[in-house]
C-alpha cells in the first residue's frame, strides 16, 4: 500500500481551477519532486494535502486514512508535516521552543499536571528538551537554541522550519521551495541534509523546488504540473528530456 495516494484532486477559486485532477502515489521513504511553472498550483496541492484548503473534488489517503475534510492538526497526527514557501516560524519564540511546540502531541501531561508541576511534567519536559537538542544538532543549530527565531539568518530559518516539521514525527515531509533565496553552495548543503533526513528517519519527502540542480539531484520521481494539470511524470532523466516540460517549464 502506498503511503500517500491522491486521486482526482481538484480545487476551484471562484472561476479559476487552480488544481485540476491531480494524482500522485508516494511510497514509504520515497523522494518525490513536484515541479511546474509559477502559478501551476504546486503550493495549492500542498495546501490541500495538509488541510489548509478544502479540495473541491478528489480523495487523499495518507497511511490508509482519508484526510479530506480533516483539520491541518489532525493531518499532522496522521503523519504529514510541511514547510512553507514564505517562512512561517514562531518568530518571537526561541529556536528551542519552536521545535518543542512541534513536540506538543508527543507529550501527554495535562493542564493540571502542568500547572502543579507534577512529576510527569518534569519527566516529559526533560525528554522534550533532549529530543529538541538532538534534532537541532542534526541541523548544526544547537548553539542557536536560545536565539529568537526572528534573529536567525535566512538560511537557518529555513532549516529551523524543517527541524520543526520533523519534530512532529511525520511519515511524509513536504518541503515548499526550501532552497529559495539560497546560493548554490547553500543549496548543495541542503541537498545533503535532505538525503540525511530521509535515511535517518526513514520518511518520504515531497519537494517543490525551482532549483533544478536540487530537484534533479535528489528526487527519485518527479511530477510536473501546469495550469493545475499533470503534464508529465517520471524519473528525473525522463522529465529533463520531456518536450512538454521543456516547453512549459525548463525552457532551453
Amino acid at each position, binding site marked *: 500500500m502506498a503511503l500517500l495516494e491522491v486521486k482526482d484532486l481538484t480545487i476551484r477559486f471562484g472561476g479559476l481551477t487552480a488544481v485540476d485532477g491531480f494524482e500522485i502515489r508516494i511510497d514509504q521513504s520515497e523522494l518525490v519532486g513536484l515541479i511546474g511553472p509559477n502559478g501551476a498550483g504546486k503550493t495549492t496541492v500542498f495546501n490541500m494535502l495538509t488541510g489548509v484548503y478544502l479540495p473541491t473534488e478528489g480523495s487523499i489517503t495518507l497511511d490508509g486514512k482519508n484526510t479530506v475534510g480533516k483539520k491541518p492538526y489532525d493531518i499532522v497526527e496522521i503523519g504529514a508535516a510541511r514547510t512553507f514557501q514564505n517562512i512561517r516560524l514562531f518568530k518571537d519564540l526561541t529556536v528551542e521552543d519552536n521545535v518543542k511546540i512541534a513536540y506538543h502531541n508527543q507529550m501527554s501531561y495535562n493542564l493540571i499536571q502542568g500547572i502543579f508541576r507534577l512529576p510527569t511534567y518534569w519527566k516529559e519536559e526533560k525528554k522534550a528538551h533532549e529530543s529538541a537538542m538532538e534534532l537541532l544538532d542534526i541541523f548544526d543549530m544547537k548553539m542557536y537554541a536560545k536565539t529568537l527565531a526572528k534573529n536567525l539568518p535566512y538560511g537557518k530559518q529555513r532549516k529551523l522550519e524543517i527541524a520543526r516539521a520533523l519534530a512532529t514525527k511525520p511519515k511524509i515531509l513536504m518541503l515548499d521551495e526550501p532552497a529559495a533565496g539560497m546560493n548554490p*553552495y547553500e543549496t548543495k548543503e541542503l541537498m545533503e541534509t535532505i538525503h540525511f533526513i530521509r535515511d535517518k528517519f526513514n520518511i518520504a519527502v515531497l519537494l517543490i523546488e525551482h532549483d533544478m540542480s536540487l530537484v534533479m539531484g535528489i528526487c527519485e520521481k518527479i511530477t510536473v504540473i501546469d495550469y493545475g494539470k499533470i503534464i508529465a511524470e517520471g524519473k528525473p532523466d525522463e522529465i529533463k528530456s520531456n518536450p512538454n516540460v521543456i516547453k512549459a517549464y525548463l525552457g532551453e
Partner: protein
Amino acid sequence: MLKVQNIDVYYGKIHAIKDISFEVKQGEVVTLIGANGAGKTTILKTLSKVLKPTNGSVFLKGQDIKNVQPHNMINLGMAHAPEGRRIFAQMTVLENLEMGAFIRKESKSELEQDMENVFTRFPRLKERRKQIAGTLSGGEQQMLAIGRALMSKPEILLMDEPSMGLAPILVDQIFNIIEDINKAGTTILLVEQNANRALQIANRAYVLETGKIVAEGDAKELLNKDEIKKAYLGG
C-alpha cells in the same frame, strides 16, 4: 550614474554596512553578490533612501541625494524593485501597474502603450489583469513587481533578487528581460543569489561579505575565479 562613497549603515546597533564604496556607470549592468545577510538588500534600500546611512554619501547623476525625500528618488530616475516583491496585494494587477507610473504625467495613451509593453513581456499578467494581486502565485507576483518598476521608465533600476522563486524558464526570461531593458538604455544594479546568471549578464560585479566588499571587478573574470566559484557558484 551612481556613486557610493564610504557609507555605513546600522540597524540599531547592528553594523550592517561597513564603509562601502562603489560605482555604477551609465548603461552598465552591475551586480552585487554575496551570501545571505551579507548586506545586499541593505545597500539597495540605502540607495533608494528607505534607509539612511550614518556616514558617507551617495551621488545620483552627480547629485548628492542626502536631502532628497525618499518618494522623490523616482523623480530623479531611480526605480527599485524591492526584495520580496512588495506588490499591492489588495489592488488588481492593472492598478499595481498604474501605481508604478504614479509620478508620470504623460497622456493616457502613452501609459497604455507602456502597459502593453509590459504585457508583451509577461503575457501571464495580461491574463490576470483584473485579478487581485495578492492571490497571484509567487512567480506571477514577481513578474508584476518587475513590470511595475518598469512603468516609471527609470534611468536606473535597482533589482533585488528578481529570480527568487521563479521557474527555470522564467529565470531565463527575467535575465533576458534585464538584458533587454539594459539595452534599451536603463542602467541596472542587480542583486542576485543566482550568481552564475547574474555574472553572465553583468558588466561588473562586487562581492559582499558581512557588510564589506571583498572582491570586485569584471563580471566574467569573477565568474572564473576559484574562490568565488567555490563560495557562491556551488562549483
